[in-house]
């Protein structure tokens, strides 16, 4: 909205107040002439008005609590003020789904363990073999908490898992297992061995050619019919495998993009040093290639994180399905905006964290490619 910096000639006559950098920036960029001033004022008015109506809905006119399930105060303010009482009543259901109410401290702890694992993995000081140990211990603890059956915890079958922990499980395992698989697929697609190349191409194109919903329905509806009577593979596991296979195909193409960007000289240099294929790939090619594709990789991760919400079509109670389920009790019907706002804040927090971290990582790792 602002014109490029215009240096004014009369700076010497300005008061000391006007000489602070912030004020000067504002004057130069927002109020440099009558047109800019008009645009600034018009936009400021619109932004403030928008903020005010949001604040009056979300804060000033909001209903924070109601007596029991008597939601009449909320319904009277419908459209004028938010009904945060629905979050107060339903937040545990949204966060933990149909996990037994009295045991919900366990999934809560699991969420914190997941967050801890993410933070530790993000710190470069831990980028060594200890990270694998930390993850193994962390996941074992999470499994023990969620399933129980040990340390005197009651056993909870994974059909009853739900909410945020389920979303985190699907996304974490989806990313953690699809990523290595995708590297092999990408290498396989560029391989000189015809069988491996053909297999990789067929896999990638086949999986990429169908929507995730199709894979999930195949996994949950068709697959059990092919199994012999009485044999059943867990519904959550089937969905998890479908998500891993699906994201691996997408990630493989991202990784391949990175591999193709490596100049031929790097390969030749590695060959001339007498390195084997795996040494060359692991020590020279992949570190450069993966660093190049951090933005599209994280893009795919973020997409995958949100795609986990598609499991609602196979009846798993992930975060979004639980949110929908929270709206079904007659007393609480019709407060969708508040509940979806709550859930989108959670999704946004995770996706934004991934995005910021990846930008940070790009800066830290960009040693030879910085422009």
């Amino acid at each position, binding site marked *: 909205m602002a014109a490029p910096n215009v240096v004014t000639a009369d700076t010497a006559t300005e008061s000391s107040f006007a000489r602070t950098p912030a004020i000067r920036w504002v004057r130069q960029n927002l109020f440099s002439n009558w047109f800019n001033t008009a645009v600034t004022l018009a936009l400021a008015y619109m932004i403030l008005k928008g903020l005010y109506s949001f604040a009056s809905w979300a804060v000033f006119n909001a209903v924070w609590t109601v007596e029991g399930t008597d939601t009449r105060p909320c*319904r009277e303010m*419908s459209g004028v003020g938010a009904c945060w009482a629905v979050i107060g*009543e*339903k937040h*545990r*259901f949204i966060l*933990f*789904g*149909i*996990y*037994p*109410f009295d045991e919900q401290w366990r999934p809560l702890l699991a969420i914190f363990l997941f967050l801890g694992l993410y933070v530790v993995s993000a710190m470069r000081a831990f980028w060594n073999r200890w990270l694998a140990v930390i993850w193994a211990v962390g996941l074992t603890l999470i499994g023990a908490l969620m399933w129980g059956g040990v340390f005197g915890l009651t056993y909870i*079958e994974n*059909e*009853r898992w*739900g909410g945020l922990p389920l979303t985190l499980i699907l996304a974490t395992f989806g990313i953690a297992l699809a990523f290595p698989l995708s590297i092999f697929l990408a290498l396989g697609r560029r391989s000189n061995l015809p069988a491996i190349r053909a297999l990789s191409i067929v896999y990638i194109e086949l999986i990429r050619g169908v929507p995730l*919903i*199709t894979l999930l*329905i195949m996994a*949950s*509806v*068709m697959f*059990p*019919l092919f*199994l012999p*009577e*009485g044999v*059943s593979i867990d519904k959550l596991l089937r969905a998890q495998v479908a998500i891993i296979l699906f994201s691996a195909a997408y990630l493989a193409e991202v990784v391949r993009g990175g591999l193709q960007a490596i100049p031929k000289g790097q390969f030749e240099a590695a060959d001339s040093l007498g390195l084997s294929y795996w040494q060359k790939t692991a020590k020279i090619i992949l570190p450069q290639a993966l660093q190049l594709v951090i933005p599209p990789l994280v893009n795919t991760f973020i997409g995958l994180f949100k795609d986990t919400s598609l499991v*609602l*079509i*196979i*009846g798993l*109670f992930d975060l979004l*399905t639980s949110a*929908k*389920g*929270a709206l*079904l*009790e*007659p*007393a609480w*019907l*019709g407060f969708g905006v508040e509940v979806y706002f709550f859930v989108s804040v959670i999704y946004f927090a995770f996706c934004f964290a991934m995005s910021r971290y990846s930008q940070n990582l790009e800066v830290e790792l960009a040693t030879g490619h910085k422009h």
Partner: protein
Amino acid sequence: MKKIALMAAGAALTFAASATPGLAQSTLEAVKSRGALACGVNTGLAGFGAPDSQGVWKGLDVDMCRAVAAAMFGDANKVRYVPLTAQQRFTALQSGEVDMLARNTTWTLQRDTALGLDFVGVNFYDGQGFMVPKKLGVKSAKELNGATVCVQPGTTTELNLTDYFRANKMTFKPVVIEKLEEVTAAYYSGRCDVYTTDRSGLASTRATGPNPNDHVVLPDVISKEPLGPAVRHGDNRWADVVRWTFNSMLEAEEMGITSKNIDQMLNDTNPAIQRFVGKTGDFGKMLGLDEKWSYNVIKQVGNYSESYDRNLSPLGLERGINALWKDGGVMYSPPMR
């Protein structure tokens, strides 16, 4: 999505035939030895099957699961709920993932035969109905001549509406809108006098809308959507258990037995009540259950009207044709003797 559903249905048809005889053990024995009933329910439908704030399943269909568990084990909580989407429900039953479906499923000839299901009863007669603002003072759909009607296109709803008005020699002005939110918004903004869809849908629209008390769902039902619990085809002993569990809830309502008064009824001298609570006769043995089965159903879950009042009345759904036959409805249990 449609294609997938067709594919799934096709596969279901192919496999239904081979899946059923493969069950060596009857479901009754399997459920008994497992100690819990695997019950397929809706992933979330207000009033029929949905978890509450504490994650506890509630609803008319859920009560069906609870009643069967009470009859089997004397404990209505011995149910493993398997939330199923519309695409999953039939294969889940055929593949043995669930023992019974209580998931607002319409009983049709095709499902009863080719899909390999057995419907054991109807626990809710749904069907297309009408919602009008209370201030119009309309008591019956027969008074809607010349009304403006909000309806969604392309469904049987639109056809039923036309047929009904033509059959009753009335005229109407349709307002056809594709999306659910928009069609209800049109109704609430006063663009039409009447909104029509399935009555259970009307009820939840009414409950979620502004000022539910200013609108009424008319008692008329103009199409047939009988919803009921289903089991696998050809497993008759298990079907008997589910069927008579449901019938016992109807029978209890008819005899005035409720969860509150059943303990006094134990000492009632009426022979029909004596048979019902298991004091005399051996209905339990005939079904392969213990003699307190129907006592447990009513004590722990309640009779049909208790279940209805608990789950559907808060949505504003009146009994209508779901009343007992003696009250002018079509709910009718064969005699328990």
